[in-house]
């Protein structure tokens, strides 16, 4: 699922024109971006139908933290194009029944994109805390729904405020007492309880059989792995004793 916008993102407000396509000129270097149109969706010709493509690692957070906002903004589009290219090549290779060389490249790009976004989020948060005095994170709260279950509701902007929206208010009145919700909640809790009980029993049985098979086992490790099992209690059980004369 793709989302769109960092609506509260103020660190980019000075970037009015995206400059990642224009020529980069300075005193020492002069780089003009290669204009390849739709062939940007494909890899370099030397990388077509090869067995292995060697690439470096992904961008780490610490590396991205020392970059400027503009650099991050440019890097995002580089990564975006790279990911599109890799996805296109992977799709084509799959369609032609060929192996896609080094598929971990996609993971690397995605990892660097995630890192970049967390860095942007950190900066945005810091900016908001300093300038506005509130968090830049998306607001939310715990809400009870129609079935009486709690969930974290992530708020978004509305045209009409809550107290003016009659239609919404009529839809969202959950204080009807007719016993149905209580019944559902009881059954739901029973289901959860049963699942919990079964998993506890499963663990205990497993530990008992382990103790039977391996009498000289490291019990500390077992305690750590199965914290719900009371080992002192199990020790005297019949199931734990192996098929040998003690």
């Amino acid at each position, binding site marked *: *699922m*793709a*989302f*769109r*916008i*960092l*609506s*509260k*993102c103020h660190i*980019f407000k000075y*970037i009015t024109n*995206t400059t990642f*396509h224009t020529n980069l000129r300075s005193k020492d270097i002069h780089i003009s971006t290669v*204009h390849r*149109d*739709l*062939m*940007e*969706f*494909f*890899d370099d010709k030397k990388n*077509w*139908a*090869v*067995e292995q493509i060697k690439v470096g690692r992904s961008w780490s957070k610490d590396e991205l933290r020392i970059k400027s906002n503009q650099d991050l*903004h440019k890097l*995002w*589009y580089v990564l*975006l*194009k790279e*990911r*599109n290219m890799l*996805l*296109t*090549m992977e*799709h*084509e*290779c799959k*369609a*032609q029944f*060929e192996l896609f060389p080094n598929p971990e490249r996609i993971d690397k790009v995605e990892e660097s994109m995630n890192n*970049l*976004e967390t860095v*942007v*989020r950190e900066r*945005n948060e810091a900016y908001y805390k300093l300038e506005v005095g509130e968090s*830049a*994170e*998306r607001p939310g709260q715990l809400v009870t729904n129609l079935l009486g279950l709690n969930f974290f509701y*992530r708020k*978004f*902007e*509305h*045209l009409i405020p809550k107290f003016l929206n009659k239609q919404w208010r009529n839809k969202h009145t959950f204080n009807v007492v007719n016993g149905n919700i209580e019944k559902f909640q009881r059954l739901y809790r029973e289901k959860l309880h049963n699942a919990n009980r079964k998993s506890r029993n499963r663990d205990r049985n497993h530990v008992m059989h382990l103790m039977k098979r391996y009498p000289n086992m490291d019990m500390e490790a077992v305690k750590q792995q199965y914290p719900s099992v009371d080992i002192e209690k199990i020790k005297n059980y019949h199931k734990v004793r192996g098929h040998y004369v003690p």
Partner: protein
Amino acid sequence: MSTRWYPIYQRGNPQLRIFLPNFWMKLVRPEEKQPKNVVQFKVPTGMTNYDIENYLKKIYKIKVIKVESSIENGKMKRAIFNKYGPIVKEDDFRRAFVTMPRDQEFEFPDVCTTEEFKKRTAEDEKSSKVSQDMYKDFLKKQGNRPGLPGWFSF
């Protein structure tokens, strides 16, 4: 990411400005024969025609005349290929046909077949053919008397 969500539309500037778009786009080989200036894409379902147009225009600097798109179902298949395998569904996607200006042409390149690739596969085929011939020889010798070891012969 928690800071990514749609704000409501408001008239006037600043308009909805996307700083870090997260949409992917795949350029795919068209299944049906298309005019030379039509390109087929696979994009996420959340993308609109305007999104696709702006994406190509702004990021890839491609001239776009028209965009047509529709949401397609992901394929249902069995994860393990027998009748007991669990059924899995691939993700839904949006298939987009992008029309470029009439004078522009795009032909989908043969990414998987190059000269080097042909050379490499030819060697493989050669070796597999040698082993096939050897097996045929073996059958000629041993075909009438199954179970006997290969060395038991004159």
